């Protein structure tokens, strides 16, 4: 039985565009999926409280400051990811050519991020998990929703 309304302070610190300032990101995700068939549970909140700071640190290391929309998107991805890890679920492999669409450095960094979360849990995430997370950062960089600090204008080539 899932719990729709139980709330705890996630303390993820990823609320604002620069990593702080607005309400906890976890609660934004919880609100967004509250009416779905799988609303956020306290277990999800506990797991996100560990993963989201890792993601924020990862983004900072990549020189990305994620806008609100991208933060929410990454956090929703994180929610699905922590559930898969918890349930030992493994994504199907993705086509090899997809990996070529993401810079190698992003993939390497995403692998480190994924392992930082999974290894203490005795879980080894498949490469597909790494690619999907890396894609979030690649798209953010590509569309300008993940501006690098100091950028005056970012590439928006794929943005409609």
């Amino acid at each position, binding site marked *: 039985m899932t719990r729709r309304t139980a709330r705890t302070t996630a303390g993820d610190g990823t609320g604002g565009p620069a990593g702080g300032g607005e309400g906890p990101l976890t609660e934004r995700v919880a609100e*967004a999926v509250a009416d779905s068939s799988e609303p956020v549970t306290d277990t999800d909140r506990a797991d996100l409280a560990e993963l989201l700071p890792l993601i924020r640190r990862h983004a900072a290391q990549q020189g990305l400051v994620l806008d609100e929309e991208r933060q929410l998107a990454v956090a*929703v991805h994180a929610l*699905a990811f922590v559930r898969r890890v918890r349930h030992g679920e493994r*994504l199907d492999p*993705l086509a090899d050519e997809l990996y070529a669409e993401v810079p190698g450095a992003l993939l390497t960094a995403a692998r480190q991020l994924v392992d930082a979360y999974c290894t203490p849990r005795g879980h080894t995430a498949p490469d597909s998990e790494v690619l999907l997370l890396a*894609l979030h950062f690649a798209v953010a960089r*590509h569309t300008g929703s993940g501006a690098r600090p100091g950028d005056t204008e970012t590439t928006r080539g794929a943005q*409609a």
Partner: protein
Amino acid sequence: MSEATAVKIVIGHRLGKGQSVADGVRAAGAEPVLIPGPGADMKVGDVMQAEGAALGISFCGSGGAGAVTAKAKYGHDIEFGMRSAQAGVTAVQQGRTVLGFGFLDSEELGYAVATALLAKLGTGGSGDGAGSARTGESA
């Protein structure tokens, strides 16, 4: 002209795919609007708004980012993290207007979801060729 009353379904795929889903939507008698380019899943809500679409289908690895973004920006009723065509059909029957899937670029999914939507709207499907193939460049 049937085009004036075509039921539009917007499709956005994280990797810029989704053609098979669009084919299935068209086969069911709805009009697919396929958003081109990478990161298209994040534009589903925007293109639905621009096109006056009845349904949006978002595909990404976890099946949620585009749907949640559409809800946050436009208040859509969503279901996310789905992995099967049947889950999408159920979501449509429940009145969801944006569906979030993992990577499932299949004609079967597009056909099933579009058929369910048309049934729910009471418009029925006219089969192959009812919708014109377009891309959502206008968003």
